[in-house]
């Protein structure tokens, strides 16, 4: 009996317990979870919100103004071969017109000025002029050149005898469009060539040099880039780089579009010129292609080159490309170097907060420093004394003694003495002497020996700052002109070993990288063909922005504003933040996606290796 009763009591209790558990479980399903397992977030591609213009063919019986308007509209469309635009031209003009020859960028787009003398009365003639102010020009090699000045080109419309329709029969070659249309339709890409071997005696792999060009964004950019790469480097860069593609190499006839397959492999069929190259050469070719296409969508992981007969020349994956040619610095640096309040060189991990003195003499504070530069391999360091008079070179090995200065300036004032030094990838040290009596740009081979005077033809003023690109081929100079304006110029380093025992080093074909800035205070390389610049526009305040070496403005937003920037250190590595020295806040850094943060109040001259 007792057992029975016990069981009878227990059974409902258990049932209630089960029911309660079930209710709790269900209740768990019915609320939003506040904990759970970890999971990767799949990146959803950003929606393409860009505006597209759709070209429309000319309307029957349209007046000449409308024809002209429609033609200019068609130029801004995505029509690959400008087929619609050609419909606005007479047959002869359409045959002669070569839209790919150039692209002229006007500030506000082309204006139309009707030529009064021929305009109104004539029934079969209509002459206008396209006007505007030039901003830039993209030439046939697709290289961008900043321009200024007014633009005016005649355009003539005539009425077709047979059909009675208005058509354009005289027009300038190339395409003309406004600046925002240009930015919408074109994009800057880097094609990569190899630095000429004349100078790189080191046994390491060759260096890849970026050659920025502009391609039309939505007209099969990949094929355009490959064609452009095969066509060879732009004129400005040609003397110092070589292409591993034999001259005349092109895509095999009949190939219209290149697309990677679903394993991200791009097959590039070449014509007969490239059929005989060796394996090493072919790897170089593939490396050039891989570097060129790396930032493009769809992603390309592997490149396969095909001979003219369809057989495989070679294939190269992304992982192997790095061993064929070097792009950017040899070694990734994790340290930020700067001069601390004891005027010695200290270093700090890229995202850290505490600094430690560098090993070696310059970290001991024996010689007070104003600025320093650390070589790419982080073994050698060059420092400028705190009075900007002497340049010291020391080793970063612990206990190494302080050597005597390798260079001394005879400038009277501090601002007329040495600039901050810069190392190139080959281990040569570049520095400029601002002595007004004898302004010089100097290079010390391997950071020692007698400084070499660098010839800078066409230099107007004195060099106020110098930074060598990681590829050792291009150099950025801030040049102070006579009227005290400071402009950013990019030059090409050429070295001639042929004459005598000492090579002749020259910086050639200086061109402006930031034409709109008239007072550049600081700059640093921030990419293969990109610099970050702090400067002032005419009549403006100091801003900081990125510029392309060809003078165009790259996509993306500029870094957040900062006042009183004296020097900037940027790295091509995305992980390392942009660091600046501000006269108000000391050393500050800008981690990606955040605001400026203070690092050290008492510190000067932050640099990354280079």
């Amino acid at each position, binding site marked *: 009996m007792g057992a029975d009763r016990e069981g009878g009591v227990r059974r409902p209790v258990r049932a209630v317990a089960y029911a309660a558990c079930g209710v709790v479980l269900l209740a768990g399903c019915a609320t939003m979870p506040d904990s759970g397992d970890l999971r990767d977030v799949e990146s959803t591609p950003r929606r393409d919100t860009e505006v597209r213009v759709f070209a*429309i063919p000319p309307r029957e019986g349209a007046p000449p103004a409308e024809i002209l308007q429609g033609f200019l509209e068609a130029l801004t469309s995505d029509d690959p071969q400008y087929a619609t635009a050609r419909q606005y031209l007479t047959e002869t003009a359409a045959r002669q017109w070569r839209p790919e020859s150039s692209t002229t960028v006007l500030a*506000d787009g082309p204006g*139309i000025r009707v030529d009064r003398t021929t305009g109104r009365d004539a029934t079969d003639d209509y002459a206008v002029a396209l006007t505007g102010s030039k901003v830039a020009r993209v030439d046939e090699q697709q290289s961008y050149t900043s321009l200024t000045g007014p633009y005016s080109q005649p355009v003539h419309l005539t009425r077709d005898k047979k059909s009675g329709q208005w058509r354009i029969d005289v027009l300038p070659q190339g395409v003309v469009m406004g600046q925002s249309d240009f930015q919408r339709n074109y994009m800057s890409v880097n094609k990569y060539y190899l630095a000429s071997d004349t100078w790189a005696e080191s046994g390491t792999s060759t260096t890849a040099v970026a050659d920025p060009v502009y391609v039309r964004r939505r007209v099969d950019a990949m094929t355009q880039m490959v064609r452009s790469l095969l066509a060879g480097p732009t004129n400005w860069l040609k003397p110092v780089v070589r292409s591993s593609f034999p001259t005349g190499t092109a895509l095999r006839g009949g190939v219209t579009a290149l697309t990677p397959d679903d394993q991200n492999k791009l097959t590039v069929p070449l014509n007969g010129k490239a059929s005989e190259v060796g394996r090493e050469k072919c790897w170089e070719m593939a490396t050039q292609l891989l570097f060129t296409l790396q930032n493009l969508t769809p992603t390309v992981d592997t490149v396969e080159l095909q001979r003219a007969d369809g057989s495989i020349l070679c294939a190269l994956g992304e992982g192997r490309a790095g061993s064929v040619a070097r792009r950017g610095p040899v070694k990734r640096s994790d340290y930020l170097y700067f001069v601390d309040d004891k005027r010695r060189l200290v270093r700090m991990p890229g995202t850290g907060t505490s600094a430690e003195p560098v090993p070696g003499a310059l970290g001991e504070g024996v010689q007070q420093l104003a600025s320093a530069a650390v070589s790419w391999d982080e073994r050698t360091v060059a420092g400028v004394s705190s009075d900007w008079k002497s340049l010291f070179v020391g080793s970063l090995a612990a206990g190494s003694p302080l050597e005597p200065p390798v260079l001394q300036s005879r400038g009277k004032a501090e601002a007329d003495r040495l600039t901050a030094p810069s190392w190139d990838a080959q281990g040569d040290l570049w520095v400029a002497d601002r002595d007004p009596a004898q302004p010089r740009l100097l290079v010390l081979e391997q950071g020692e020996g007698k400084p070499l005077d660098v010839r800078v033809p066409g230099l107007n003023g004195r060099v106020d700052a110098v930074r060598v690109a990681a590829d050792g081929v291009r150099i950025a100079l801030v040049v102070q002109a006579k009227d005290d304006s400071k402009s950013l110029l990019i030059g090409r380093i050429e070295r001639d070993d042929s004459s005598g025992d000492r090579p002749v080093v020259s910086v050639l074909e200086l061109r402006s990288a930031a034409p709109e800035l008239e007072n550049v205070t600081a700059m640093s390389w921030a990419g293969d063909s990109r610099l970050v610049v702090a400067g002032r526009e005419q009549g403006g305040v100091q801003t900081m922005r990125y510029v392309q070496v060809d003078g165009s403005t790259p996509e993306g937003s500029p870094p957040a504003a900062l006042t009183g920037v004296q020097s900037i250190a940027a790295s091509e590595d995305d992980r390392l933040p942009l660091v600046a020295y501000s006269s108000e806040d000391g050393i500050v850094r800008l981690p990606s996606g955040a605001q400026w943060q203070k690092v050290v109040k008492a510190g000067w001259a932050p640099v990354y290796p280079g």
Partner: protein
Amino acid sequence: MSGDSAAPAPGGTGDRTGRPVGRTGAGSRWGRLLDGGLLHGGVQGSPVLRLFLRWVRRPLLPVMRLWRRNIQLRVVVTTLLMSLGVVLLLGFVVIGQVRNGLLDAKVKASQSQATGGFAVAKQRADEAATATGEAASTTDGRSSQNVIQWMSDLVSSLSSGGQGAFDVVTLPAAGDDSGGGRGPRASGGVDPTASVPEELRARINGSMVAAQSYARIVYKDSDKGSQPALVIGKQVNDPNGDPYQLYYLFPLSQEEKSLSLVKGTLTTAGLFVVVLLGAIAWLVVRQVVTPVRMAARIAERLSAGRLQERMKVTGEDDIARLGEAFNKMAQNLQLKIQQLEDLSRMQRRFVSDVSHELRTPLTTVRMAADVIHEAREDFDSVTARSAELLADQLDRFESLLADLLEISRFDAGAAALEAEPIDLREVVHRVVGGAEPLAERKGTRIRVVGDQQPVVAEADARRVERVLRNLVVNAVEHGEGRDVVVKLASAGGAVAVAVRDYGVGLKPGEATRVFSRFWRADPARARTTGGTGLGLSIALEDARLHGGWLQAWGEPGGGSQFRLTLPRTADEPLRGSPIPLEPKDSRRNRGLDDAGLPRGEEKRATVPVQATGDRTASARGPIASRPVAVPPTADPTALPGNGARVVPRPASDARGQEAVPAVETAGNGSEGSAAPERVGPRDVTQQGEASRGR
């Protein structure tokens, strides 16, 4: 055999015509079936269709049968269908409401967004117009300067306001494709001309009022599929004052997702509800149907005679009450039947006892009457006549008593069969020989047919002889002086003796009643003459005892035929008779349908006499007929006298064995030995009688 016998022949033919749905799909039969179907159904033009329908229906037939027979299936399926219908209806209503709600909210938000966008566009156009006007006040040649870039910038800035929430499209204003040489612009990869409906363009073109429409966004140069969208458009002016059309395209993908979520939820819920309702219906019906099925099974057993069967009753619900009531009913039935059986047993016993008890005084009376009868010459004429009458009626009384005893022995199941192989020819000759004197008196000739070969069967010779004597005497008596033919035959597992007369015959329906006890053709006539009225009943019981049949056929004025069919070996079920019940020389067979009687009735005038062969009979066809055996009279002794009561060969008790010879002598006496003297007066009295009660 076909057409004249009630037993197997009609069954055979009926088999063919009565079941049109022949299972045996023999090709030859299709044509006949089709012909029949066409003739009957009149669906002349579409045999192929019928074939097809039949082909379709054939696999469904089991399902349909199940549907007809299974109440559970019916209820569950009906519930499922109804709940499905309700769920579908509910789903449509709810989805419609949710859709309307989502759309309302979206439309309101979109309209305010688009209105703001149009205002911005107008404002920017005004700003640009004033700026251009200031900059180029001198020349009007620069009027169309900035529009290309300005418009692209406008679209870009408007569309950047809503990342993915909407896209912006501009179209030239004019109805035809190129207004002012301006190309369409679109953000987000939208195909502008395909995405904006023509009606909306035409509507906007005329007025300065914004309009909206639903459309599908088509994307260009991407694998993104088109999606539904709300398009709001308005005609606005550019800096030059030229109109163009500005559209806001709001994709409804989010709303579509919400709707599909609701749809999915509703579908899942509906599915569960339908399944739940189906399961509930199944359970409920199961609760009800299971006892009903049990009751049906029990009832079947009860009807099969197993009166002790009861339902299992558990619980106190309605079903339990039904079971209790059912059980009570079964118990009452059992009780009543028991009582009736007791009563009938008591009555039989009473009859038997009365018969026995009457014999002793009757013997005394008989002796006294004999003495008086012997001395009748000494009496005066009136007294002598009385003495004769007394003797006659005593004879009658005695034979009646003997028959009663005999039949009560049958009723009590005391009759025992002593079967041995006999040659029926001997029996027939003996019977015919015994009936000769009577026949001579009536002027009738008795012919025996079919006695060339021995007709051997395992039978009780005494009983067979009694039956045949009864039949032959009856035939002679009612034969009206015409010939009486006794026919013998043997075929298969059966032997048969048919007695044919050409007397008054039988009226329709009488063929079944002649075997009833104390039956007479004219009830008004008192049974003062003739037989006891039990002769044919006893004969029937005898035949049944053998497992044989005794059947009658007759037609008014055409005579009658009685046929006795016996199995060749005892206990072997009969499958048919070697002699057709209806003779070949019947009027119908001769085509003399003078009486105008429907033949079918005559044909059915049979009494299947079957002691044990119920299932054989049913297998053979329509002669089966349990109901035929129920006697019409209210004679209490008749109740156990039906076929079912005759137990084949019970363990015969001593009394029965003793009694048989006694009755035998009595019975035989009445028909056989005593026949010569007694036939006379009976003949006289029965001459004009149509009664076949004997």
